[in-house]
């Protein structure tokens, strides 16, 4: 009888832990039908038949938009409680499943805090665009939570993080050198995303979102393949998108560093047992730093001053590099690329071949108008691009500067910038508080 009860109890526990993953697999299977694109080319009727105008999906009613905001708030609050108070990794897994189902599969990845960076950039630099309040809230709320409690948004609310969290279970640590190179990519991605959005050229974060094709029923196959391969890679190199691509993560990283109350590895006093030292797949645990082997005070001070003085040098270098890149970067704008395609075809003396050029010729707009627009946009890129370089230069400078500062730590702490508050380290801490 006791055995049966014991077995029943064990089965219940096992099911409780397994269920989130079963739901995750079902969600993936449900969305396996990804055929609604790349159809056979449309017939070109010569009878004058006019195709119906493409209709964009209807916008969500304002009431429902605010409902989404309320769900975001609720999910963040619950995640914060689960990570900071309850310290429940299993609870965070359930939050991931919920967020994946709601913000990922149900809301099809839109609206999304990650992409809202572009709405904000567009609104800041274009008078003609008014950012929807819901988009602004989606941008602000996770940052405010990061400022208060760390990256709880990444822990269980972001659908992009959730899908990776649920598939990452064989962590492999990358060599520090590779990690250093890859970790700089999100800064570049953020700089470019803001640059392209502010010049009204493209929303590259949305366009190249690797998981959006899985959330929706429509995406180029190449993006779906990229998404699935990223998930497969994420089994070993956990959360590859969050770590090496996510531009919003850069902002969360900065805000989270100042978090008033962050998740802790140990619920009480750290005994420096070092059991948690190697368990974080994101290398986000900072070991304690004793007084021993400290350098002479003059040396780090000199280093600090040197790197501090280097910040403007890095910024100017970044600005110069991006200024020279500006004409090439302007090619991302569809009008600029169209103008260049037309000029290339003219220079090589060939007839129009690309659909965009053919469509332009049918539009009735003159080449002179298009070339004038191209000049205006390129000029805008020349003015904006150096600021992207300045941002990257300053980021590099501050990063270097922070690596010259040492503070006395007597316990193992999460790196507040890098920690996703995923709670993987909880179970490795031998100290338990009832």
């Amino acid at each position, binding site marked *: 009888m006791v055995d049966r009860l014991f077995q029943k109890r064990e089965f219940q526990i096992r099911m409780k832990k397994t269920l989130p*993953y079963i739901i995750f697999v079902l969600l993936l299977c449900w969305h396996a039908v990804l055929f609604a694109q790349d159809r056979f080319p449309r017939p070109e009727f010569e009878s004058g038949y006019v195709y119906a105008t493409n209709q964009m999906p209807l916008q969500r009613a304002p009431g429902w938009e605010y409902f989404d905001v309320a769900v975001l708030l609720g999910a963040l609050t619950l995640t914060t409680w689960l990570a900071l108070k309850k310290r429940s990794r299993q609870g965070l897994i359930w939050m991931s499943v919920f967020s994946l189902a709601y913000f990922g599969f149900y809301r099809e990845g839109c609206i999304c805090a990650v992409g809202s960076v572009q709405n904000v950039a567009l609104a800041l630099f274009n008078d003609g665009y008014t950012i929807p309040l819901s988009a602004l809230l989606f941008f602000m709320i996770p940052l405010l939570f990061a400022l208060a409690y760390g990256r709880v948004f990444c822990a269980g609310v972001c659908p992009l993080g959730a899908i990776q969290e649920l598939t990452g279970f064989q962590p492999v640590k990358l060599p520090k050198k590779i990690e250093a190179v890859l970790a700089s990519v999100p800064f570049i991605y953020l700089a470019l995303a803001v640059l392209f959005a502010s010049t009204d050229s493209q929303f590259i974060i949305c366009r190249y979102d690797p998981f959006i094709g899985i959330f929706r029923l429509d995406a180029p196959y190449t993006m779906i393949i990229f998404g699935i391969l990223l998930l497969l890679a994420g089994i070993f190199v956990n959360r590859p998108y969050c770590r090496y691509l996510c531009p919003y993560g850069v902002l969360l990283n900065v805000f989270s560093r100042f978090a008033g109350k962050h998740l802790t590895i140990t619920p009480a006093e750290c005994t420096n047992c070092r059991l948690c030292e190697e368990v974080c797949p994101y290398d986000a645990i900072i070991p304690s730093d004793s007084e021993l082997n400290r350098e002479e005070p003059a040396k780090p001070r000199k280093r600090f001053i040197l790197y501090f003085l280097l910040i403007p040098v890095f910024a100017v270098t970044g600005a110069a590099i991006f200024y020279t890149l500006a004409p090439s970067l302007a090619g991302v704008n569809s009008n600029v690329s169209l103008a*260049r395609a037309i000029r290339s075809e003219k220079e090589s003396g060939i007839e129009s071949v690309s659909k965009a050029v053919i469509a332009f010729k049918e539009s009735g707009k003159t080449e002179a108008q298009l070339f004038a627009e191209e000049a205006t946009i390129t000029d805008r890129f020349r003015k904006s691009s150096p600021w992207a370089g300045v941002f990257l230069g300053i980021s590099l400078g501050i990063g270097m500067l922070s690596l010259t500062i040492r503070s006395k730590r007597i316990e193992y702490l999460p790196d507040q910038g890098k920690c996703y508050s995923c709670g993987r380290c909880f179970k490795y801490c031998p100290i338990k508080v009832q």
Partner: protein
Amino acid sequence: MKFDFSEKDITILKVVSQIAGGFALIVALTMIFSLVQLKTINPLDNPVLLSIKDQYDKDPGDASKAAMVRAMDLMARKAYFSSRWQVETGSYLLLGGAIIFILCQRLISDNEKRKPAFPGTKAEPVNIQKNSRRYLLVAATVISLTAISASFILRTTLPDPSGRSGFSSKANNNEKESAPKPDKSNYPFFRGQDSRGIAGGSGYPTEWDGISGKNIAWKTEVPQQGKSSPVIWDDKIFITGASGLNCEVYCIDKKTGALLWTGTASGIAGEPAELPKMDQEAGLSVSTVATNGTEICAVFANGNIICFNMEGKQKWAKNIGVPESNYGYSSSLIIYENILIVQYDSRTKNSVIGFDIETGEQKWETIRQGRPVWSSPVLGYFDGKAQVIINGNPNVVSYDALTGNELWSVECMTGDVAPSVAVNSKMVFAVTDYAKLAAIKPGTGASIAWEDNAYTPDVSSPVATDDYLFISTGNGDVACYNAEKGDTIWTHYFQDQFYASPVIADDLIYLIDRSGVMHIIEADSKFKLVAESPLGERVDCTPAFSDKKIYLRGKKYLYCISDN
């Protein structure tokens, strides 16, 4: 989650996981390859299929070739859809492989009693910081160097916005062709230069009276009647006439109206012994001749084509087969460079043919789909290229003037199509009665910009400037449209029918009705009648303009109208 697997089970899970992972990877690579194929290959661009299609176009009656075209087309489409199916199925397989791989890895991971490895010697924070700084600097240097290299590499691939690159100068050497300005003296084809209905020069008379002789410089009886219009080169007017089977080409002195020479266009090998079936009013001489200043070429409704030099010496002649149609044959000739372009319409075959004007050798022939029409070819200049544009049924089609290759086609006409197209620098306008008026944006992917069906001529061709389109109908209506947008700007009703095509000269539109009254209107956005001048003879032919004089063919006489 945790299951108690034996070591053997774990080994099996690992093998299954590796197989599933490898399988998913292979499927992903295959899908990428298939996708590249799908994106780059157009199923209907198969060279074999195109070659058979070409052969079929040259011999449309060949049922075996038609069957081959259908079979090849079906095969090409099947191959395309097979690739599609492979990609679609692949996405299921990829997802399946990924799920199995993830599940196996999950089970393996959970079953392993993972204990945190007790770390070895604790790394010295100073060294960690030092290494991190080094890595960060190396990463920044690598990225910066890549960006600098990219900025130079990408710049060299950009087209030169100033237009001063090597390519640009090459392009400048191959300047795009544009429409030549109409000459003030020479009026070489039906409706003048390029057959567009626009005359060169200025100072043309607006008032005359054929009965009283006011402003009639001379009047000459054309030996044999015909519906063909006069064309002019230097001091010579060329016109045709026919009586029964006897076809002739006349050269008339532009200054005096004297007949300089008559060229016989009958007795050519292959011509029919009897008159072809046709409208009784038409006759064999409806098509207008064409000249390039060296040769003068004529075509007749019995299929005879003949070419003379300017002195009336025959250079070559041939019969291209009797064009069989309800009303007879009426397409006029045009010349582009050294190619004589003939629009051939018959129940048996519709085509456009290019002959070497020197020798009469056929250079090319392009089969035209659809039913016979009575329009004439027009030269238009779009995309920097001379194009022969034909108002056909059902397609308005453009052909390369040198090779005869079809450039674009728009299906928009029905019924009996007799008016030729009007062209300006941007658009082509096709119209016929009981169908519609269609403004076409020419070029690859040509499309209809706007349509109307309020004013549609049955015989008379429209004429267009860049701003306006003018139409004169068989009911006596004249309409002016906004050429770009299609708005009707003004209309006016005249009492008589228009068969002759309007011609714009010196910013005036010359419209002659069937009773012989010339209505002269300003070619502008407001209707303003400048003058109405009677000829005193019925007229169906389109006038010719040269050196401040107008040449009109009535039913019997050819007139020279001059203010002097």
